[in-house]
């Protein structure tokens, strides 16, 4: 049986753990709020962009012949995996990496991998995959500027014919307790998806021309998509960590009460035993 001192030590260490998980939970809660604000702040731009795009596409006859929109035979695919830089976030990273693995094994074409976030990079490298490109340190502070650089690089590869399709895999923030890994096609860009929302048909005057506007608009929309994926992922990460840490704190609390109960019982048993020994000793002396 463990000695009383051992149990006491154990209780102390679990208490320390609980302190840490509690602190982590609170930090995540604060970061989550910030990340959510960023997601919300990004919304008006994305919505307006969608609306403008819908107007433009509605005005065009048929599919416009923009290189970024044109689909072709897919011989090579690029997969962008967005995870987090840190662990201890429950199933957050493993959900994405599992899906990534399935994508990689199911793919009929060769796949090149881009990673954003250290965890996904480490996982896939550990599985023997070659990472074509990693963007480290993007997630610590997600900026549109960086998102645009990434979008530009991916677009250039697509335009140069190095890959024929680009997919993005990331966690989507559904609520504080639910995050879902989502796989979406980034390139060729699906402009038609936005068109369905085209509300009113207005004849716009374009300057310099509809064509030119569309040409600027599509790369913008792609950058926004990457930007949003990263924001969503960051929000989901903090939400996942918050939940995980809350559970950990609860479990630690349960463990402490079990251990305390056990400790008190052992102590009581010891006292009783000692008492009995004294009493029986006294009895024996009385003789």
């Amino acid at each position, binding site marked *: 049986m463990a000695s009383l001192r051992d149990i006491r030590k154990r209780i102390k260490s679990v208490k320390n753990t609980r302190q840490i998980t509690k602190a982590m939970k609170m930090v995540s809660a604060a970061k989550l709020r910030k990340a959510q604000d*960023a997601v919300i*702040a*990004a919304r*008006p*731009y*994305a919505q*307006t*962009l969608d609306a*403008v795009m819908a*107007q*433009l596409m509605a005005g065009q006859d048929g599919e416009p012949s923009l290189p970024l929109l044109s689909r072709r035979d897919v011989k090579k695919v690029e997969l962008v995996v967005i995870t987090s830089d840190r662990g201890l976030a429950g199933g957050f990273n493993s959900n994405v990496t599992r899906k990534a693995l399935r994508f990689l094994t199911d793919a009929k074409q060769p796949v090149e991998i881009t990673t954003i976030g250290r965890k996904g990079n480490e996982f896939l490298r550990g599985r023997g995959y070659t990472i074509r490109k990693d963007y480290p340190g993007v997630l610590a502070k997600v*900026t*549109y*500027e960086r*998102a*645009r650089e990434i979008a*530009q690089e991916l677009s250039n590869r697509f335009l140069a014919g190095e890959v024929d399709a680009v997919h993005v895999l990331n966690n989507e923030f559904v609520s504080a307790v639910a995050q879902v890994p989502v796989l979406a096609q980034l390139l060729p860009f699906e402009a038609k998806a936005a068109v369905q929302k085209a509300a009113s048909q*207005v*004849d*716009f*005057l*374009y*300057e*310099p021309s*509809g064509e*030119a*506007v569309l040409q*600027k*608009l599509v790369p*913008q929309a792609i*950058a*926004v998509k990457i*930007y949003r994926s990263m924001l969503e992922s960051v929000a989901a990460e903090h939400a996942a960590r918050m939940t995980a840490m809350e559970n950990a704190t609860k479990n630690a609390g349960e463990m402490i009460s079990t251990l305390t109960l056990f400790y008190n019982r052992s102590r009581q048993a010891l006292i009783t035993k000692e008492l009995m020994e004294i009493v029986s000793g006294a009895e024996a002396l009385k003789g």
Partner: protein
Amino acid sequence: MAKLNVEVVTPERRLVQAQADEVIVPGADGLFGVRPGHTAFLSLLQAGQLTVKTGTKDEQYFVAGGFVEAGPQVVRVLADAAEAVSGIDVAATKKRIGELEEKLKAFEPADSRGDELRGRLAVERKRLEVAGKK
């Protein structure tokens, strides 16, 4: 008199949401003004100064390019980046210009690989110019 609903949004946040009498926008083919009742109009932006006029009050912003959608009642500016002119950090802008010029030295003027850097440099110079005007 009818007013215009003016919105200036960047991917990161909504900078302006206000009612105004007139908006002067740096369009791709030059400055243009929008007043209530303007025809539906969609233009690219170039880096420059955006002015929002309300009564006798003018508010100046710097936009780094993007789009503007104008209609009879609304002006929506989708800027790549935007900030109030009074908020421009001149020292930081100068520093960025210096860095970009440094990086550009690696390319010949005719080298198309430097185009992106050159574009960014032009935006930063414009930012400085707008900041200096007021």
